């Protein structure tokens, strides 16, 4: 067939002699293991460093730091509950607003939209992800805050002001405003991941439902059931971003360390107080208190994740049993 028979490759045999047969596998395994393990080490080191840095306040205030509501640096009273509350509430508002929108957009572009419309809609949503958070913050200060103060809040306050949720003066800045900003910021990621998850649902699931005479809506429900764990993952990604977001939140949340039921009242978040007060924290105790807020942020993120994992696990387990039965 061919006259130029290649001589046994000298380089290959050289490598073969120098290394055992599966050297590549070994190196690959070792390198990936080292990198994967280093992430765990990094997290452990971070937690260790933060605990060390905050030991002063941990040993001095104990649990009172977590449930205390008074944050008053000049007199060295440090209670971090308002920040924990603010982070959870503002992120919660963001989820309530962003999740239905994101899933609706994902369903629309996956199943309903005409082909010509799919790309543009996705591009516009993904464009939101490219906007830096300080730009969201500035837009918040100059557009959203006056709009909330003059247009959105007054009717709520006059009609529903008797409810703790809507009482108090209209500042413009506050929990609801920061929740809305966060909602806009997390919509792209929740949408993008949900869309990927929906697209990965086997076509026969939907075809089967339609073949059995299901309406479009019923078919979507079948698909949605199938995609639920993945969509929960998408929501968690969004939530993680909301919990850690700093700049945009700081610019519109009102930065007041109060716990107030009203959505229009100013609040504070853990990431914001660290960003605001760390550079000028001028005593060891103050610095330690801020680092301990960092520890709490770490734990809250962790807790949220664990909770979500549990939800996914329960949801999938229930469904697989249902299918078997």
């Amino acid at each position, binding site marked *: 067939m061919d006259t130029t028979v290649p001589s046994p490759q000298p380089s290959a045999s050289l490598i073969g002699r120098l290394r055992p047969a599966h*050297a590549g596998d070994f190196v690959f395994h070792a390198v990936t293991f080292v990198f994967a393990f280093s992430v765990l080490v990094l997290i452990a080191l971070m937690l260790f460093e933060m605990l060390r840095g905050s030991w002063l306040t941990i040993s001095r205030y104990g649990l009172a730091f977590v449930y205390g509501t008074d944050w008053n640096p000049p007199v060295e009273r440090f209670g971090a509950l308002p920040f924990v509350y603010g982070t959870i509430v503002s992120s919660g508002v963001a989820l309530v607003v962003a999740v239905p929108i994101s899933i609706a957009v994902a369903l629309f572009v996956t199943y309903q939209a005409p082909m010509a419309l799919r790309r543009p809609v996705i591009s516009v949503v993904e464009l939101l992800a490219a906007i830096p958070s300080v730009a969201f913050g500035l837009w918040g200060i100059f557009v959203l805050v006056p709009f909330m103060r003059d247009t959105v809040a007054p009717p709520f306050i006059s009609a529903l002001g008797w409810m703790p949720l809507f009482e108090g003066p209209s500042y413009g800045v506050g929990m609801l405003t920061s929740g809305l900003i966060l909602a806009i910021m997390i919509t792209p990621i929740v949408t993008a991941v949900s869309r990927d998850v929906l697209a990965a649902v086997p076509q026969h699931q939907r075809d089967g439902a339609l073949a059995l005479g299901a309406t479009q809506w019923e078919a979507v429900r079948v698909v949605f059931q199938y995609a639920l764990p993945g969509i929960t993952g998408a929501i968690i990604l969004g939530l993680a971003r909301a919990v850690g977001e700093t700049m945009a939140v700081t610019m519109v949340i009102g930065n007041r360390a109060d716990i107030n039921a009203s959505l229009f009242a100013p609040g504070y978040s853990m990431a914001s107080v660290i960003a605001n007060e760390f550079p000028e924290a001028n005593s060891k105790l103050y610095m330690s208190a801020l680092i301990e807020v960092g520890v709490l942020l770490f734990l809250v993120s962790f807790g949220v994740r664990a909770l979500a994992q549990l939800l996914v696990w329960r949801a999938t387990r229930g469904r697989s049993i249902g299918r078997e039965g």
Partner: protein
Amino acid sequence: MRLDTRAALAGFVALVLLGTACGQTSDGPVTPGAMSSTGAGLTLQGAGASFPGPLYSKWTSEYNRANPGVRIDYQSIGSGGGIKQISERTVDFGATDAPMTDEQLETASKEILHIPTVLGAVVVTYNLAGLEEPLNLDGETTAEIFLGKITKWNDPKLAALNPGGALPSSDIAVTNRADGSGTTAIFVDFLSKVSPEWKEKVGTGTTVKWPVGPGNKGNDGVAGYVKNTPGAVSYVELIYAKNNGLATAKMKNSAGKFVEPTLDSVTAAADGVATSIPDDLRVSITNAAGEASYPISGFTYLLVYKDQDDAVKGKALVDFIAWALKDGEAMARELVFAPLPAAIRAKAEAKLKLVNHAGKALLA
């Protein structure tokens, strides 16, 4: 094929190792004196207060133009960071708005000198559409507004201070600065001096627990809120009010005069303490004496070690500061920073003469 993968892998690992090695050399702590101080390229590192940041950038670049052999890097990381870094000797000089506390000075390994450079002032700014004349305020009334005790613009106390002005009956929307800053420290220091109630209930510091109102991030955040909110009142740095055309209140000083915040009235306030300033120059000049003094202002300082480890770097440092105090004044005015009065400048220069290496003064 397998060779390629392996080579790529090995190359990648080598790259990562190289990256870490480089990271160590460039990001590791830089100890003054340990760095090379010979040759033409001498670099001084400084860090601290963000308020004088624009001026220090101007000074360092102008100084470098005149003395190409000396490069000075200044990082505006905040006064707290500046104090921390000079105490840990990771920079050649620090900078702060509020003087270091005794506790902080004790943590430093050697004696640190405070050298005032310029003055900053804090102005009360507000959003009242109908008011033509600048609002008149005194310390006590200002404290009551920020304590939440005066809630309407036409409160009798405000009306008494502004007999000519038509004050609306609207609510006062108090807002404050949320991030820790020298601006807040100077403002609450003034309020604590003029209002016993403020001193007892709120106190002083770079961050305090504000009795009322939401907080905003940075001077720009505060200014944006005030501009957007009818009836709002807050405080920003003088330079910020000037550059953004914000309405600023006249403040009643300790001599009973309503004084407009200007560079001259701020310099006058520093002159008011010229005779009473302590030897280490650590002083608060809020509510200063003198008819022309604007009452809410303060020095901003450079922090340098009295005993320098490195003669060459120490010499470059004191030469720069001496130049800044003398030739830098015109640049300060251009950038809306109030220069030191002559009497204080003489004291600052005398301080600089104390900086020495092995007992020998470095300033010629």
